[in-house]
C-alpha cells in the first residue's frame, strides 16, 4: 500500500502499537550535530523523523523550539542545509523523514523547486502548520507530482465539517494537536486530544497522530491508547539544550528519551 509514510504507520498498527514520531530542527545545535541528533532519534526507536526548518518567526512554537531555531539560524543554517540533513538522515534508514516548516521559506524557495529538491533528498513529505487547506492547492499539486505526502494539522477548535475538509486534502497521516497552544512540554495531556482523535477518525481512514505537549513515556503510553502515533519535539530539543554543548551527552540523551518513548508507545 501507499507511501513509505503510510507503510510505516501500517507496520506499527500491525504490531498493535502506536508509531513514535520525533522532531528536531535542522542546524541545531550545529548542522552536523543536527544530522547526528536526527539519526539518534531513529537509533533510539523513533519510527518517523520530522526535520524542522528553522524560522525567524516561529509563531506556533514555544520558548524551547524558539531557542533552538535561534541557535540554528545564528549558526547560519540555510534551506540547502535542511535538505542535506534530510538526505543524510534518509540515506541510512527506512524510517520516513518529513520536513516541518512554516510556509514562507517554501514560498520563497519556490514551491515546485522545494518539492522537487525534498523528493530528491529522499524526504517523504511535509507538515506545513501555517498553510491552511484553502491556500494549499499549489503545494499539494507539486507534492503529488513528486510523491510527497502532505500532513495537515487539526486542532481541538476544528469543527466537524472543517475536519472533513482538512482530512480529505491530506495524506500520510493527520496531525492532531493535543491542546490549544504552541509547542512545548506540558505536565498533562488533556482530554481534548482523545475527543479530537475520535472526531477526526469519523472523517477519514488516515492514521491520526497526536502531538503538542507529550514528553514522557507515561504520556506517550496514554496517547498511544487512542492514537495511531505519538509526536514528540520540544522534549528532544530540551535534552540537547540541557547537554550544554556536550555533543556526546546530547546524542546519548536523545537516544535514551527515544528509547523510553518507544517503550511507552508499545505499552497500550
Amino acid at each position, binding site marked *: 500500500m501507499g507511501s513509505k509514510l503510510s507503510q510505516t504507520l501500517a507496520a506499527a498498527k500491525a504490531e498493535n502499537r502506536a508509531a513514535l514520531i520525533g522532531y528536531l530542527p535542522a542546524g541545531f545545535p550545529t548542522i552536523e550535530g543536527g544530522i547526528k541528533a536526527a539519526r539518534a532519534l531513529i537509533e533510539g526507536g523513533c519510527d518517523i523523523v520530522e526535520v524542522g526548518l528553522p524560522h525567524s518567526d516561529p509563531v506556533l512554537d514555544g520558548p524551547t523550539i524558539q531557542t533552538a531555531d535561534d541557535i540554528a539560524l545564528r549558526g547560519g543554517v540555510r534551506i540547502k542545509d535542511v535538505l542535506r540533513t534530510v538526505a543524510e538522515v534518509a540515506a541510512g534508514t527506512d524510517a520516513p523523514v518529513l520536513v516541518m516548516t512554516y510556509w*514562507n521559506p517554501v*514560498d520563497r524557495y519556490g514551491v515546485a523547486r522545494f518539492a522537487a529538491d525534498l523528493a530528491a533528498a529522499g524526504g517523504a513529505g511535509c507538515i506545513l502548520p501555517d498553510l491552511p487547506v484553502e491556500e494549499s492547492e499549489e503545494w499539494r499539486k507539486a507534492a503529488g507530482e513528486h510523491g510527497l505526502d502532505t500532513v495537515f494539522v487539526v486542532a481541538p*477548535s476544528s469543527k466537524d465539517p472543517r475536519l472533513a475538509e482538512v482530512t480529505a486534502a491530506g495524506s500520510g497521516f493527520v496531525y492532531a494537536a493535543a491542546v490549544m497552544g504552541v509547542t512545548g512540554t506540558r505536565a498533562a495531556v488533556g482530554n481534548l486530544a482523545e475527543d479530537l482523535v475520535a472526531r477526526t477518525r469519523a472523517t477519514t481512514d488516515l492514521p491520526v497522530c497526536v502531538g503538542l505537549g507529550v514528553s514522557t513515556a507515561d504520556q506517550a503510553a496514554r496517547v498511544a491508547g487512542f492514537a495511531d502515533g505519538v509526536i514528540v519535539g520540544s522534549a528532544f530539543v530540551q535534552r540537547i539544550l540541557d547537554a550544554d554543548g556536550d555533543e556526546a551527552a546530547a546524542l546519548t540523551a536523545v537516544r535514551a528519551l527515544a528509547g523510553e518513548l518507544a517503550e511507552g508507545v508499545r505499552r497500550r
Partner: protein
Amino acid sequence: MSENDYQPGTQVPDARGYFGAYGGRFIPEALVAAVEQVAEEYEKAKADPAFAAELDALLKDYTGRPSPLTDVHRFSAEAGGARILLKREDLNHTGSHKINNVLGQALLTRRMGKTRIIAETGAGQHGVATATACALFGFDCTIYMGEVDTERQALNVARMRMLGAEVIAVKSGSRTLKDAINEAFRDWVANVDSTHYLFGTVAGPHPFPMMVRDFHRVIGIEAREQVLERTGRLPDAVVACVGGGSNAMGIFHEFIPDAGVRLIGCEAAGEGAETPRHAATLTKGDPGVLHGSRTYVLQDEDGQTIESHSISAGLDYPGVGPEHAWLKDTGRAEYRPVTDDQAMQALRLLSRTEGIIPAIESAHALAGALVLGRELGPEATILVSLSGRGDKDMHTAAEYFGLYDSEGK
C-alpha cells in the same frame, strides 16, 4: 469577473481575502474557527444599523470626531509654498488614529461574547487605544510590546498600565513590533475561546486588512469633504506614513476613485533605504507571507524575515498591509522612503512653525510632504495625515536634538 479582479475603491477584497495577488489567510488550523468567527460577526455587524449607530456615537462623543483640518501656512512656506492641510488624527482621544479601529473591534468583541482582548503595539498608540477601550467596555486587556519599544515609548507603557492593562515586554527576536505580533498570536492560539486579538493595522489574515481599513475609512471620508469645502477642489496629493499602513489606508481609500489625486505613502528608511538599517518594506522588500497574509516582506533568499530598523517604533516593521502591496503594483499609490533624519527635521519644523508636535511616525509623512511640495510648486494642495501626536516621542526627540543638554539645540 475572476476571483482576482479586485478593483480599487470597492468595499471588499475577493472571497478569500485577496487584493489582487496579496492578502489571503495563512493561519494555523487552531485559529481558523476564531478568524472565521471574526469575519462572520463583522459581516453581520456591517448589516446592522444598531452597530453603525453605536460606533458613530462613540466616534463623536468619545473620540471627538470629526477631527479638524488645519491649514499650516508657516510650515507650507518650507514646502515650496504648496498649500499643506493636516488631517488632525492627533487630536482624537488617546492621541492618534488608532482609536477608530479599536472602538469598532471592541464593539465586535462584545458581540462575539468574548471578555478578554489582546493586542500588539509598536509605538504604544495602538496599545493605549486598546487599553482605553478595554477600560471603557470592561474587558481584560493584555498588550504585547517589544522590549526595545517599551524603553523608547515608556510614557505609553505607563499610560497602558494606568488604564488597567497588563503590558508584556517581548524579549524574542528583534524585540520590536514584529515579535510583539508573534507573541500575541501565541497567546491567541492558547486562549482563543475567551479572547479576541484586536489587531492594530491593515495586515494579518483576512478579514483584518479589510476590517481595519473600513474602521479607518472615516479619516478619508471626512478629509475629502473638508478639503472640498475649504478649497473648492480635490487635493493634488494625499500623503501618509506607512508602517503596517492603517492610517494611510484610512485616508487613501475614499480618494482611490479620484484618479487625479496622487496617493503617496512614506515608509521608514531608517538610516537609508540603501543601508541594511531601514523599514522600507514596499521599496526594498519582496512578496512573501508574514503574519497571516501575502504581502511585501523584508526577507532574505530563504524566506527568513530581515529585522527592520526605524527611529519610529510604529513604523519599525518588516511587513505591510496587503492592500498597499496591491496599490503599489497597480501604480495607484506611490511609496517613498523617508529617513530618520528627514523625519526628525520635519518633526522639529512643524513644532516650531505651527506649534504642533507630531508623532515621529507622522513626521515621516510631513517630511514626504516637504519634498513633494517642492516638486509640485505653490499651486499644489497636499493633504497630510497627521496620524498621531508626539508626546510619547519626547524622550527620543530630546536625545536626538540634545534637549536634555543645558543649552538644547
